[in-house]
Structures are given as structure tokens and as C-alpha cells.
């Protein structure tokens, strides 16, 4: 520090001490609004039990009050703000004290969790749409204390999970790749960290999440099962604020505030795990040398340009890395950027323009002098979307627009390390251009009857650069000979598909408390994941529709009854649906899809269907909030080459699914959350015998897939949150204590059918010595029994 700066600091400090020194019989201070740091004029300041001798703050929010015996409790109250109580010690009274009061409406957010009108579900035309306020998500007991968006969505009716501890979503019989996850309008291709244990979104940086279970507006499309529309929140335009948390496995921090004056704001949000630290504490060097972490960073800047225009730029970057012994590394990264321009042309015309780019890439490195390699792949989607909205009168709303998407799935690239004996692999790229035109209109025929009709027309071209292979007899197969190949230049048309996607919905409001709705939706999906495991992996291969792979087509009809009661405190809904899927893919037995340029030879295609009824009772207002959901549903697939061509249930078919979510505010300091889940077990295949081949006993499976069931899954989680009593300080902290799987239920993650040697399931026949006995057995793996965690959350 330079001499000048030291002297300056000394001078300023000295002045400050002089300026703030005060009469020891008086306590002075200032009362401000925490949301904007503006002084609060006329706030009451008094010692506990002596309100008659209190004072009020002046025009600058300042006060002076006679001291009493210390320590004592000083109370600050102001209409419309939460009361603040702080214990004052003799030392505190030596200097002026600042109090930040919190507006009452801020705390109400946590009680009125519905971010919409109380009777919205009766009025609107939406079916199969769920909105979960971010505050609700934050109150749900969390695995490892990590509040998770997708894990919360799994608690909604119609949404199934792949299994214990995973964030994969299976919506109304659709597979995980049939969900469009988008952040501020830009798609996120791998929305999970740690192989699906956590989703990529840091809840502190989010504004809202809407889940459309198939009935999505015409302005959205491209996936057959659902749209998960996540919005980053915007920064406030008053002052710098922050919030964050320190958890068992990660910490997070979000800062927001004005950028260049009050017409522009920013928000920055980050999170990083520290599992590495725990690994580093291990006495085992093999574990100590491993790396395991993820981080994500998101930001958004918004500019208000005059009375009519607003531009916002959002970006998200998130990475995972798994490293073993500094010789093996697996990492993957999502990077998403979106620019949105919203224009209010007039009171009746609105225009929204959006551009985005989403990139996902992974890399696997193996550092070995003889067989080392670097294997990487990336895919990207760039898009431009324009939406015009016209409101000619109070009963009518019209939307129309265009949406162009360009997909680039880069070649698989495997490069051997110098000196490595393996050879490189390079496949051909896959590119697609999808142009959509859409129009939709809402019309309210009468207060009772309203309707929405929409049409989306998708025009898809698989385009070059690329190569198509021609097979004998025209059909690809693993043993079928390639008779020719066709090379295509940049943007040259390789294959064209088009499809009309109508959407229709009606709402009839029987009375103030009861509505009936029905809807029909069609969606086409031009990209899929070539995988038949239930949980996604970072190296999963996305494939485009093309010469041999037709787009997925989904048709869904639904009917719902909606009822509000007790002055809209309670919402009740019952929705039934039937969904038909065409051209869903599966993999042939033993398929190898990662390195082949003829992935079509490994695929099987067929159809699917799903149906179900979803019941939801929800309480949104009051000290106790939450919901009870029950879903009865079935999902089916019928694919030539699987299960002897007979229909079968995919693993995520779980007919009965009960969910209870409860939150209760005991006081301004204490609150608690509880969730309970009970579902039918996953559909799986158990052996029906065994046989001897290659000198070993092999489980024999039925030719029909997934005829068996895991035991029912059930689990209860609980959490308690304690907030420090509001002492009027800017820093506000709270502790959250969560227990995942409260009663320690051993829900199976997997059953392994294998030989058990010497009556010891841990005995390794290859390395653990002499074998005395061998018999067939079943080994169950289970995760997360009674897992407590603690998180400190803060705001400033």
C-alpha cells in the first residue's frame, strides 16, 4: 500500500471516528428499506416494554434514543415492513447502528407460493401445465441439501423418475430425450451434473419454471413429451444484493443489482462442488488422486431502452469433471447463450425476437503410453425466433411467428496419443435445419367458453456436409452390406421431412369454482438419443432424423376437471390423457453406437403409447402449503426386434404414484418441509433360469422384456429451516437441516444376478483366493439411506 493510500485511509478513519463519536447516554442510528437502502421516515424505535418512550425516525431515517440499562432489546417497526428486534450491548451503543427493514410483501412470497391469480387454473386454457414457484422448490427437503429443480418436478403428477437419486424426467410416458429443457429460450442438451444426480440449475438464479406436459403452445415445439421452460431472473435496479449458501457438498453465490443506472441490471450466479476436498482427505492414495467436481455459472444483463423496448442477454456455462489418478479424465460442458428483445409496439401489438446458441461437448482422455487417446464430441443448436402478438380486443389474442433452428452434431473424434497403438476414428458430421412457422389464437366466446387453436408447421432438412450409406435391399442392418455411399456438400439437402402440428384447447367454466378443459396436441421431434439405458450418460449419442430415421410423432388428447374451493385457497384438478408415439427408437442387442458412422444399423424403431389420470390437490395460501398428487398411468412400447415384437413396458412405467409435499411456517423463525413418495417399482427383467455356457453360469432371461417389477418405492424426506430473528441487519442468514430418506428405506437401485462365492458377496473370484463354494444369488444395491445434510443460506 502506498504512503498516500495509508495516509488517506488514516485521515478518513480519523474523521469517521470523530464524526460518529456520540453522547454515551444516547443511542443513534438509521433505519432503511433493505430492498433499496432508502431511509424510512417515521419508523418507530423503542426499547422492549417501553414503547411509550420511543422515538420516530426523521426525514433522513435517523433517530436518537435515550439509553437504558444494557444489554436490552431495541425494537424497530414500520407499517408495511417486518418488525426488527436486536439485542443491544454496551459496545453496540458506542456507534450509530443501521437497521434494514424487510418489506412485508417480500416475506409473503414464501407463504403465497402461487405466482398467479388465485383462480387462474379455472380461467386459463392451459392443461398439463405445472408451475412450481422457486420459493417452493427451495423449501422442499433436498438430497445432500442441494435444492434441485428437476428433483422437485419429479414430485408433480405425471412425472416419473428413472430411479433413486437421478434427475431424469419421464413425462406422461415419454422418454428422457423427449423433454425440451430450455433456459431463457435456449435448449440445454445435458441438464445434469454428476451423471444425473443433480440438475444444472442453481435455484438462486432462477425466476420461474414452467412444465408443459405435452400441451405446449404453438410457439414451442420440437420435443414429443414436455417442455421445461426455465427463466433466469433479472437483477434488481436499486442496489447490489446477494444471496447464497454453504452446503454439504457445494456452495453458491448470486449477486444482482443495477448495471449502468436504473435502466439496466445484471445478475451473476455461480455454484461449485467441493467433493474433491473429501476425496483429498482419504487415506487411500488411489482415492486421493481422483478429481470429482462440477460448477455452473450463469448471468443475465437486461437493458430497458425507452418505454417500449427491452433487451436481455443470458448465458449459462456448466461443467463436470471426473479424473482418476491423473491418467483418466472425463469432462462435459454445457454453454448456452440467449439474446431476447421484447418490444411493445402499441397497446395491442407486441414483438419478441430471440436468438440463441447452445453447445454441449464432452471429452475423454486416457493418458497411457501404449493405448492413450483423446476422444471428444460436441453438438450445438443455434436458433432465431420471432413472435408477434396482437390483442385486438379483450376477448382475442393472436400470436404468429417463425422459428429457425440449425443443428450441428460434430463428428466423433478419437485421436490416439503420441506413440499410442490405437488408430484414430472420425465419423461424418450430421447437420439439420428446422424451420417452423406457427400461428395461434385465443378467443373468449363468453365468460364461460373460451378456445385456443394453433398450428405449427415444421420443415426439416437434414443437410450436408454429410454422408449417407446405401445398403443392399435398401434397409440398414449390422450384417447388411453397404453398396454405395453418397457425399453431400455444405447445406446440400440430404433428407426432407415436414409435419403439421395442430394444437386445440377448450375451456368451459361451469361456475366460479369449476371448469372443464380439453386439449389435443401434436408434436414432431427430429432429434433423439440412441440409447436404451434408462439414465442418461454424458457420452450419449444424439442422432438426427435422416434417410433411415424418421422423426418421432406424438399425439396427445387430454380432458381435465378443475375445481377451486375455500376462497381459492385450495385447488383440485383431475386430468386424463392418452398419448400416441410413432417412430421411437431402441437399440438392437449388443448395439455399439458410440464410434460407428452407420449408427442406423444399430437402431430399431417402433411405436409407443401412454395413458393415465392425474389427481392433484394443492394448497397455495396460508402457513401450511403443499400438494397431494396421485397418478395412475401406463406406458407402452412396441418395437420390432424387441420383446418378440410384443408390447412391453419401459422401465419408467410405474402405474401408481403418490406424492405428498408439505411446508409449514411455525413462526417467522421456524419452518419445516416434508415430502413423501410412494410409487410402483420399476419395470425390469429378472432371470427365469440359468444355463451353462463358456464354463460359467449365465442368467437366462425371458424373451419378453420387463415382465417383472422392483418392489414399491417409498421414501420420506424432512427438513427444518431456522431463520435468525430479524435484527434489522443487512445480512440475513438461515440454517436448513434436511434428512433424505427419513426412515431409511432400502429402495433398490439395482439387482445383480451373479454367482456368489464362499457365501460372501464381496468375494472376488479373480483375486481373493481359493473358492470353496459357488452358488447363484441376487445382490441388491441401494443408495441414500437416512442421509442428513446441513446448509447455511444467506442474503445481503
Amino acid at each position, binding site marked *: 500500500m502506498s504512503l498516500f493510500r495509508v495516509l488517506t485511509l488514516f485521515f478518513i478513519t480519523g474523521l469517521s471516528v470523530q464524526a460518529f463519536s456520540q453522547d454515551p447516554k444516547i443511542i443513534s442510528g438509521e433505519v432503511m428499506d433493505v430492498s433499496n437502502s432508502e431511509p424510512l421516515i417515521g419508523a418507530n424505535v423503542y426499547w422492549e416494554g417501553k414503547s411509550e418512550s420511543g422515538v420516530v425516525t426523521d426525514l433522513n431515517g435517523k433517530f436518537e434514543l435515550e439509553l437504558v440499562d444494557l444489554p436490552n432489546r431495541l425494537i424497530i417497526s414500520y407499517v408495511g415492513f417486518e418488525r426488527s428486534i436486536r439485542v443491544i450491548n454496551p459496545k453496540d451503543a458506542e456507534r450509530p447502528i443501521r437497521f434494514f427493514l424487510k418489506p412485508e410483501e417480500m416475506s409473503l412470497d414464501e407463504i403465497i407460493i402461487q405466482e398467479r391469480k388465485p383462480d387462474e387454473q379455472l380461467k386459463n386454457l392451459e392443461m398439463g401445465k405445472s408451475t412450481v414457484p422457486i420459493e417452493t422448490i427451495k423449501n422442499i427437503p433436498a438430497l445432500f441439501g442441494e435444492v434441485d429443480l428437476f428433483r422437485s418436478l419429479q414430485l408433480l403428477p405425471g412425472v416419473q423418475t428413472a430411479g433413486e437419486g437421478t434427475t431424469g424426467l419421464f413425462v406422461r410416458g415419454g422418454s428422457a430425450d423427449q423433454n425440451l429443457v430450455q433456459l431463457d429460450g435456449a435448449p440445454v442438451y445435458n441438464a445434469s451434473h454428476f451423471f444425473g444426480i443433480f440438475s444444472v440449475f442453481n435455484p438462486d438464479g432462477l425466476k420461474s419454471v414452467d412444465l408443459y406436459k405435452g400441451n405446449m403452445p404453438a410457439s414451442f415445439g420440437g420435443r414429443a413429451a414436455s417442455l421445461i421452460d426455465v427463466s433466469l431472473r433479472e437483477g434488481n435496479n436499486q442496489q447490489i444484493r446477494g444471496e447464497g449458501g454453504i452446503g454439504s457438498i457445494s456452495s453458491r453465490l448470486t449477486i444482482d443489482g443495477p448495471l449502468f443506472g436504473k435502466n439496466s441490471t445484471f445478475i451473476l450466479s455461480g455454484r461449485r462442488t467441493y467433493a474433491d476436498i473429501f476425496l483429498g482427505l482419504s487415506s487411500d492414495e488411489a482415492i486421493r488422486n481422483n478429481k470429482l467436481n462440477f460448477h455452473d455459472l450463469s448471468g443475465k444483463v437486461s437493458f430497458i431502452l425507452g418505454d417500449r423496448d427491452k433487451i436481455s442477454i443470458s448465458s449459462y456455462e456448466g461443467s463436470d469433471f471426473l479424473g482418476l489418478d491423473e491418467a483418466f479424465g472425463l469432462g462435459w460442458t454445457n454453454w448456452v447463450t440467449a439474446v431476447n428483445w421484447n418490444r411493445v409496439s402499441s397497446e395491442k401489438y407486441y414483438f419478441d425476437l430471440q436468438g440463441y446458441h447452445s453447445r454441449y461437448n464432452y471429452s475423454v482422455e486416457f493418458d497411457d503410453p501404449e493405448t492413450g487417446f483423446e476422444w471428444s464430441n460436441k453438438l450445438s443448436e443455434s436458433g432465431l425466433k420471432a413472435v408477434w402478438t396482437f390483442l385486438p380486443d379483450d376477448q382475442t389474442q393472436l400470436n404468429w411467428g417463425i422459428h429457425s433452428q440449425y443443428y450441428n452434431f460434430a463428428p466423433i473424434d478419437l485421436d490416439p496419443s503420441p506413440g499410442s497403438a490405437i488408430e484414430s476414428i472420425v465419423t461424418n458430421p450430421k447437420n439439420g435445419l428446422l424451420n417452423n412457422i406457427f400461428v395461434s389464437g385465443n378467443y373468449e366466446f363468453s365468460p364461460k367458453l373460451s378456445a385456443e387453436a394453433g398450428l405449427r408447421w415444421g420443415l426439416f432438412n437434414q443437410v450436408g456436409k454429410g454422408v449417407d450409406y446405401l445398403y443392399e435391399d435398401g434397409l440398414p442392418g449390422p450384417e447388411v452390406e453397404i453398396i454405395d455411399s453418397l457425399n453431400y456438400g455444405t447445406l446440400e439437402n440430404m433428407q426432407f421431412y415436414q409435419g403439421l402440428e395442430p394444437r386445440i384447447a377448450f375451456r368451459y367454466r361451469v361456475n366460479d369454482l369449476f371448469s372443464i378443459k380439453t386439449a389435443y396436441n401434436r408434436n414432431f421431434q427430429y432429434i433423439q438419443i440412441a440409447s436404451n439405458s434408462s439414465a442418461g450418460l454424458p457420452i450419449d449419442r444424439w442422432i438426427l432424423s435422416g434417410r433411415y430415421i424418421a422423426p418421432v410423432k406424438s399425439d396427445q388428447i387430454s380432458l381435465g376437471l378443475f375445481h377451486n374451493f375455500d376462497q381459492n385457497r385450495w385447488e383440485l384438478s383431475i386430468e386424463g390423457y392418452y398419448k400416441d408415439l410413432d417412430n421411437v427408437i431402441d437399440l438392437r442387442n449388443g448395439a455399439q453406437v458410440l464410434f460407428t458412422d452407420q449408427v442406423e444399423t444399430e437402431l430399431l424403431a417402433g411405436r409407443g403409447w401412454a395413458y393415465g389420470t392425474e389427481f392433484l390437490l394443492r394448497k397455495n395460501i396460508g402457513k401450511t402449503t403443499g400438494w397431494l398428487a396421485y397418478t395412475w398411468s401406463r406406458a407402452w412400447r412396441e418395437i420390432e426386434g424387441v420383446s418378440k415384437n410384443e408390447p412391453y413396458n419401459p422401465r419408467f412405467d410405474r402405474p401408481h404414484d403418490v406424492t405428498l409435499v408439505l411446508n409449514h411456517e411455525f413462526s417467522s423463525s421456524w419452518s419445516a418441509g416434508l415430502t413423501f413418495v410412494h410409487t410402483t417399482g420399476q419395470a425390469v427383467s429378472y432371470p427365469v433360469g440359468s444355463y451353462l455356457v463358456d464354463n460359467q453360469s449365465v442368467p437366462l432371461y425371458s424373451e419378453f422384456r420387463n415382465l417383472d417389477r422392483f418392489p414399491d418405492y417409498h421414501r420420506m424426506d424432512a427438513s427444518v429451516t431456522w431463520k435468525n430473528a430479524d435484527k434489522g441487519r443487512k445480512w440475513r442468514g438461515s440454517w436448513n437441516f434436511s434428512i433424505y430418506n427419513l426412515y431409511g428405506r432400502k429402495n433398490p437401485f439395482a439387482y445383480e444376478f451373479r454367482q456368489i462365492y464362499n457365501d460372501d458377496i464381496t468375494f472376488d473370484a479373480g483375486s481373493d483366493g481359493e473358492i470353496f463354494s459357488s452358488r*447363484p444369488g441376487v445382490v441388491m444395491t441401494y443408495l441414500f439411506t437416512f442421509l442428513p445434510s446441513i446448509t447455511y443460506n444467506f442474503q445481503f
Partner: protein
Amino acid sequence: MHRFVWILLAVFTWSCQEEVTLPLGTKSELVPTIEGFWTDQGIYNEVKFTLSKDYYDSTEVVVVTDAEVFITSPGTDKVIPFVYLSGTKSYKPQNPLDKAVIGERYQLNIRWGENVYVSDGLMLEPPIVDSVTWRFEEERLFRDEGYYIKVYGRIPFEEDNNYRIRVIENDTLKNQREDYLLFDDTFGLTFFEEGLELGYTFEEKDRVRLELFRLNRDAFDYLNQLVNLLFSDGGLFSPPPQNPDTNIRVVSGNPEVLGYFAVTPVLSRSLVIQAKYD
């Protein structure tokens, strides 16, 4: 890849395991299992014919002893009859000198009651094995400390590059699921010329026998699918378990059959691990 997922889960998530008993279904009829080898070395030529059993049944499998087994060479009138030998519990060529000839196609024929099964394969030319060496290696990632064997050779073929190396250590066949050594030309074949290291550790004085097979694709696929099945942990990251696709066709009778038929040349080498080669 799902093995890495398990590493992650084991390190990170307090996963636990315990043995359980699940109620399992049974087959109404036991399924015939055929395992046939037809090679250029008489000692390997045999057909095993057994029946499946209930999963929890820990008794020996039932061996079918009364089947009619023979190999033909399509396009010729050659018929090679097999007879059941109780000592090996398998069918062996009636004439032990009969063996496969490179370039010829063979068909396995089995008649058992009403059931008729056939399978065929082409006898391929073997690759060239130049030498087999061993040396002591320190611990590396995925490899323990110990003696490692390297096989050097040349594979001059453009197609049908489907190989298996079988290892017999001190008279015991290494056939745990992680012991299977199957490779094709997906990553090229240079590694075979520069020395293919077997992924097992050996100890000094170990007697090791290596057997290299060049398989037809369907038999190679069968073994690959078998290994995948043995590694299937029933979890979310595994594909749904399926029986490996057999290359044996049912001509008549019970439509279900398990196992595979391999027509393959065999190259074998034997050695004793000695410290002097360190």
C-alpha cells in the same frame, strides 16, 4: 462407461449392497443350450449340449446325451459324425483326426427328439503370432503391479477381424467377466503389431497358456453380448438384460435354443513366467 458411474457412486453416495432373495419366474420347459467348437485342432473340437435350469438351482446342469450330432460341409457330401463321451460330458468327432480346413464352410447339425438345430460358419485363416513376452510392471491406472504378458503378431486381413484370446493360468481358465479378451478392428490393429498387453497380472512361475481364436462375426457378437450381460448390474445405466443372440437356428421343434457355434482356427502358446526377463 457405466463402470465409471459405479466408481462415482461408490465414492460419493454411500451405496450399500446386500444379498436378497427375490421370487423369480421359471421356464415351463428347460431350454436346450448348445456350445459347439469346430477348429483346426482336434483337441478343441466338441459340442456341449445341456439344458437350462431354475435360477436358484445350484445343482449341475442336465447334460443331453442322446442327441445326434454331426458336421457337414455344404456343397460336399462330407459328414463328420460326433459321439457322446461321458468323460468330457460332450460330443466329440468319431474320428479324432477330423478337423476344420481353412476356407471351408461347415454346418453343425443336431437332432434331439423332435428338435432339429443347425448353425454354420466359415473356417478363416489364422493371424500370425510372432512372439509372446512378459515383464514386470509397476502399478498403473486400472492395472495392478505384477507380470504382464504381451502378444506380438500381424493381422494381414481386411475383414473378418474378430478375435478372442483365452488365457489358462496354472490349468485354470480365466473366465470371470473381466477376463474376456475380445477385440476387433474398430480401433485398428496396429496395437497387435506393437504388442497387445493382456490385462491380467501374473506371478513368477505361473504357467500360462494363451489361445487365440479368429471368429466369425456372429460368434464374436455372441461373446460380446455375453460379456455385456455378465456386466449388467440391473441398474439404470445398463441396457435391459437380454440373452445373447444365438447363431443356432431351430429347424423344427421347441423354438428356443441358447448358445453358439464357433468355427475358428486356434493359435496357442505356452510359457512360464520367470523373473529373468525383468
